[in-house]
């Protein structure tokens, strides 16, 4: 597959500046999608991770990107970009063009690139990711398998079947549970009873819960989980709390505007930017904007399917 210019990726040694750069790249990409939709350039649907960039960057920067596997969900652009940085391939895919990472067949929710997979069925990906962990364990590859699920996806029974099996067989599966406050239009309180954290714990899965949008904290906690798993300690769960800044997909958003405004004060880019040097931030932002812009323009110029 022909790949264009990539966004620089992050690892455990990346500086806050670099982490910020990657998050900003993802933000820019996602915002441009909403823009392309509004301009009628994109069709179908898309789910952006605005406000949740720290999860993507925090988790993937803790992984061995050559080795580890990840299964992403419907809200997977950030995961994809933090995994491989191939903005152009993703643009092409979302645009349904032949050059896309899956030739335009999969589109936004159905991505596959090297060790990264995604699918649009809530919950169903969780046992698959658990099977990936089993495969890697049987092969002795040392890889871990990461799977992303939202608060709403905790409604699906497949999740608990997977918790049970991952725990019984001590598989290297990392369940990243991201509570962004909503499932589509439904607030968490109407779809999740009891405690999120207690759910994997009930199956004997050590669970870390963090209420922060600090990307470094997320990277640190992920690293601890991954190191333990690589040492054979069995599955881990990571419960992250954040807020979805954008609409569920591209449509209506019936949430309280004040609530959304308040969330913009704690969103991961802002939180990190406050600690960084303004000039460096501006340089980085400019470089990313240009990079993403080039990817977008190249993708826009690429041919569509013709019959």
């Amino acid at each position, binding site marked *: 597959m022909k790949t264009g210019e990539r966004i620089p990726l992050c690892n455990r040694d990346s500086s806050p500046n670099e982490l910020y750069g990657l998050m900003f790249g993802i933000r820019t990409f996602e915002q441009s999608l909403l823009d392309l939709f509004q301009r009628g350039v994109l*069709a179908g*649907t898309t789910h952006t991770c605005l406000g949740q960039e720290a999860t993507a960057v925090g988790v993937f920067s803790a992984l061995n990107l050559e080795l580890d596997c990840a299964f992403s969900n419907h809200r997977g652009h950030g995961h994809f970009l933090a995994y491989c940085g191939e903005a152009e391939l993703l643009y092409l895919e979302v645009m349904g063009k032949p050059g896309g990472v899956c030739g335009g067949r999969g589109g936004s929710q159905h991505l596959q690139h090297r060790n990264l997979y995604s*699918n649009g069925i809530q919950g169903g990906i969780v046992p698959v990711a658990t099977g990936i962990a089993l495969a890697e364990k049987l092969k002795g590859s040392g890889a871990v398998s990461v799977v992303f699920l939202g608060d709403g996806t905790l409604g699906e029974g497949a999740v608990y079947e997977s918790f049970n099996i991952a725990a019984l067989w001590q598989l290297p599966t990392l369940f990243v549970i991201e509570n962004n406050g909503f499932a589509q239009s439904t607030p968490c309180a109407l779809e999740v009873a009891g405690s999120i954290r207690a759910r994997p714990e009930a199956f004997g899965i050590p669970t870390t819960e963090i209420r922060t949008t600090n990307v470094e904290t997320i990277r640190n906690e992920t690293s601890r989980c991954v190191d333990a798993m690589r040492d054979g300690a069995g599955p881990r769960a990571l419960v992250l709390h954040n807020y979805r800044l954008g609409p569920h997909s591209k449509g209506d958003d*019936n949430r309280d505007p004040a609530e959304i405004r308040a969330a913009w004060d704690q969103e991961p880019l802002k939180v990190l930017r406050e600690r960084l040097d303004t000039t460096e931030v501006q340089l980085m932002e400019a470089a990313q904007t240009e990079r993403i812009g080039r990817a977008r323009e190249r993708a826009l110029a690429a041919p569509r399917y013709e019959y």
Partner: protein
Amino acid sequence: MSTKDMSERPTTVLQSLNAAMHRLMAGDSRVVVLGEDILDPYGGAFKVTRGLSTQFPDRVLTTPISEGAIVGLANGLALRGMRPIAEIMFGDFVTLAADQLINHAAKFRWMYNEQVRVPLVVRTPMGGRRGYGPTHSQSLEKHILGVPGLWVAAPHALGDPGSLLEQSVALEDPVVFVESKVCYGRFLTRPAELRAEEIRTARSPFPTLHLTHRGGSPDGVIFCYGGMAPVALEAVERLRDVDGIRVDLVVVAQLSPTPTDHLEALLQRGISEVIAYAEEASSSAGWGAELVATIEEIRASIAPRRSIRHLRIGGAHTPIASSKEMELHDLPSAELVAERLLECF
């Protein structure tokens, strides 16, 4: 509903369904509506449930993302005398409710020796052409046809979707009600040039719509249902206007059990040399196959020496692409239906 009503006040499929939901809830306190994201102001992913939670807050329940349990709950409600209408947000997720439909809902009445009834309706939108990709565009109804005890019905823009829903809720047995997501915005209308007749029987209560050209027997017939009705109608019009070929249209609303008596009645009116079956799913092991087999059985008894050219026309036998061009190319269009028929003449 007659053609006249429709022309008086234009109504969309969505409006028809939504109005029926309101009537159903207002008219019967046993009706309970449940599904994902159905509360106002959102009112459901495709808005069929809009306004219900405001009017009937106690009987409209937004659920977690648990398709299996949604239908399971509906089973329990139905067993205990309620009239649940469950929504599965995308028909693609009916796979998650397959066990509740096949091993619970459909079985209870018979295996409990007729001591219970399971009057539930599972509504769900199927179909592509919206760019939603491989897991949000399928027409999976073929996989739940032929289940003893389970009805499958499909409204369409040439009929009365709301009445069909009311009929479904009135049945004592479980019904999967397959809506077409591209048709929600369509106006209910029937072509004035064609004569319309509805067949319905006690055994097969969901009406089959027969649209015929006036004067003389047709050159062929197209069978279709749901979202393929407007596509097939366009093919009929194209064949007539461009190619001078007169093809009747039959729009089936009862997908399962097969409305054998309706088919018999149709075949009694005359046996076409060419019958096409237009469906959006790939036609392998699908709805059209069942119709071919049933029609052949009927033909053998009423015209043992005649032969019919059966033509199944469906989508590509692949998943459905996100790419708009590929999706539209792979799903059966009016052009394709017309072309495939033309090849027979």
